[in-house]
């Protein structure tokens, strides 16, 4: 590792994405880390720090879609398995004991990300992998990794452009999948990703302007890689002071990490947002504040005797009905040797064979004339 702690992000891989959606009732978050490989440890740490803050402020795992493109915690190169640290004093294990990664490793692709956003997931996708939001949800989307002017790299093999992202958000708006959306991106030239948004109610923050690189914070000599990026490090510091009752507003978040600390100039975009940022609380997007009504009525719970009695009767019926069952033999040699191989089901010939025969017959009849057909039929 070079002596200087500044290390520009190389355009190699996209580490992670975090998508969170917030909102009054069905707030969700999406957090995406799109970078692969051990040297992109810091992108996973970025994503997990935001995940941790969000969980701490009250969002349950069912409303968080966490996508990590590579596994750093149990990587063979990690000297402390099952941990991901954000600071070189190793005081904060952002991986924790209660993490649920919804999309991991090869599942983090542009297609899956866009499907999660727009809701067009394949049938059979479990609930934890879907973005369950409605028109009253506030959504937070956090993306980190390697990017450039107008694109973000996924897993060193594909990119998502700012136009695709803007169109995905427009689809979400048309399908009423969000009420307000906060988009945070921590990559090189991050501001280029929000330039093309055109849907209403979107607020965006980026760690650097077009033409600038976002830099990493500090390396750790024991782990051997940079642990976090500057912008997210200071955002995490800022979020650690927020509790669910805080009244801090978005203007404070815009001031996090000035150029003196971050070396790059963080940017933000609020023209599509209808409310004034100074009236928007941080906990609107990062926390989940439920409205609770206290009632003084008492409700008594009756045990349901009906079910227990019927199941008791069934138990007795079971005993008398069946003959003794037995376990299967694990390695019946005689039976295995003498089993016949199953005949494959007959399928009608496929398109190619049919087409070939049709061609042959057509050529025959063209050559010899149609009058021969009566000999066939």
């Amino acid at each position: 590792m070079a002596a200087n702690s500044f290390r520009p992000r190389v355009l190699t891989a996209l580490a992670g994405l975090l998508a969170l959606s917030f909102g009054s009732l069905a707030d969700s978050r999406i957090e995406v880390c799109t970078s692969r490989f051990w040297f992109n440890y810091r992108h996973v740490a970025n994503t997990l720090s935001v995940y941790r803050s969000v969980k701490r402020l009250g969002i349950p795992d069912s409303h968080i879609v966490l996508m990590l493109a590579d596994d750093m915690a149990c990587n063979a190169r990690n000297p402390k398995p099952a941990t991901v640290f954000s600071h070189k004093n190793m005081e904060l294990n952002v991986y924790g004991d209660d993490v649920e990664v919804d999309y991991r490793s090869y599942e983090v692709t542009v297609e899956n990300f866009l499907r999660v956003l727009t809701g067009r997931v394949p049938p059979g996708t479990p609930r934890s992998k879907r973005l369950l939001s409605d028109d009253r949800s506030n959504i937070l989307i956090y993306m980190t990794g390697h990017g450039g002017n107008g694109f973000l790299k996924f897993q060193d093999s594909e990119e998502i452009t700012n136009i695709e992202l803007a169109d995905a958000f427009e689809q979400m708006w048309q399908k009423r999948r969000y009420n307000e959306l906060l988009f945070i991106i921590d990559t090189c030239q991050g501001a280029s990703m929000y330039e093309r948004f055109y849907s209403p109610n979107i607020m965006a923050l980026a760690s650097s302007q077009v033409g600038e690189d976002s830099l990493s914070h500090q390396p750790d000599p024991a782990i051997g890689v940079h642990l976090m990026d500057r912008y997210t490090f200071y955002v995490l510091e800022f979020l650690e002071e927020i509790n669910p009752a805080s009244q801090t507003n978005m203007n404070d978040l815009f001031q996090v990490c000035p150029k003196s600390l971050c070396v790059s100039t963080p940017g933000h975009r609020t023209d599509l947002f209808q409310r004034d940022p100074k009236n928007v609380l941080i906990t609107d997007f990062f926390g989940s504040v439920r409205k609770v009504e206290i009632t003084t009525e008492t409700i008594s719970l009756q045990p349901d005797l009906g079910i227990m009695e019927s199941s008791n009767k069934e138990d007795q019926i079971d005993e008398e009905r069946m003959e003794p069952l037995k376990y299967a033999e694990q390695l019946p040699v005689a039976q295995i040797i003498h089993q016949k191989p199953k005949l494959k089901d007959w399928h009608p010939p496929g398109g190619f064979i049919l087409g070939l025969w049709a061609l042959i017959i057509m050529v025959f009849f063209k050559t010899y004339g149609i009058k021969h057909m009566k000999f066939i039929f």
Partner: protein
Amino acid sequence: MAVAVRLALIVLLLLGPGGWGHTEPSRDSLREELVITPLPSGDVAATFQFRTRWDSELQREEVSHYRLFPKALGQLISKYSLQELHLSFTQGFWRTRYWGPPFLQAPSGAELWVWFQDTVTDVDKSWKELSNVLSGIFCASLNFIDSTNTVIPTASFKPLGLANGTDHYFLRYAVLPREVVCTENLTPWKKLLPCSSKAGLSVLLKADRLFHTSYHSQAVHIRPVCRNARCTSISWELRQTLSVVFDAFVTGQGKKDWSLFRMFSRTLTEPCPLAAESRVYVDITSSKQDNETLEVNPPPLTTYQDVILGTQKTYAVYDLLDTAVINNSRNLNLQLKWKRPPENGYIHYQPAQDRLQPHLLEMLIQLPANSVTKVSIQFERALLKWTEYTPDPNHGFYVSPSVLSALVPSIVASKPVDWEESPLFNSLFPGSDSSSYFVRLYTEPLLVNLPTPDFSMPYNVICLTCTVVAVCYGSFYNLLTRTFHIEEPSKGGLAKRLANLIRRARGVPPL
């Protein structure tokens, strides 16, 4: 039957203060156990098993009340008409040669094999949907299971539980070797346990210790079993197993002494109140090996002996439900210590430093009778600097002979030697003991053939470089810097005139 009666009694005790109004034996029970096995290589293996047995026919009735059996898995069984499900996540490899045979091994990565019931019409569709649902439950990429990595074994993987018939059409098997196991897979696995990670044996399941191991395997097995000895009705059995092997050097700092605290950084504080049985077994079969004795602390109250995997084994049993073993004021921290008799060997090794000092290895060994002892040392050949080679490097380099100084027991007792009286050949070594004599032997020197470089290469390189420089650079230099002057031929000179005279006489053209 006695077990069932006892179970019912325990359950009645638990439900009594609940105020249900009628005594109803609960139909599920939990047994948990931990087996600690010290392995021959100094490592220690810990195998957790949590078994929930549910006396119910999940296929037939509409079940809405889940107690100990997790709802997520119960709904899977009824929705996809499963007969058996076996899912495992493993990191590492079980080294049978060093560790002995495992209880239940699993392949590295994720393995899923399922027997569907014969009422299922489209097995492939159910298989695909099941793997998607499981990938959501266990936070793993099981959704990558499709026809390209699924097989239908025809001979093996017979059902491990009760089975009516074994038509292999209803069996599916898939393995994802690239699957990583980490905390996000352990967390939902722990959440399926009735006591979660709050009480009983599951408090020991901390991710930062469990993943710092040479082998980590967690699995879920669901199968139908006999409810009683007559086997007339079916119960569903869910077994969650977790096997880890702690490395003696990484976790144990090189020592073979183990304790629950060193392995898991936790001790056992209380049994799980929902468990009918909660036990810790420690394998004390090989309590005497290599002159070492294994001591287990606190001493066990009972032991269990049986033939396991073909050999007779003895286990020390600690029952967590027994207040003598564990109670409110006392934690259970099992300690395993190997006590060895004092060493009577000696080894001294001084490694070499390049161009400073050679290797020195001294060992004091006791050779057993009628045996052959081999001592071997591995070495690597390195290249020297080219000036350090002798003029005949292809001869090789010599390694000095080894010295063996031995006290050999004599067959016949000898009397002490008087140096002045006895012949000279008897007084070479001072003999102090009459039962053995001292001898010093040497081995042959070793001639090692080191790789020799081609010594003509420096000369070749110099020649070639100089030639190239001279020809190319020299020509170029000349072309750039040489200037050409036209010289007028001069007329005069006495010698020239004389020479022309002679040439005219000869008939040769003039200068």
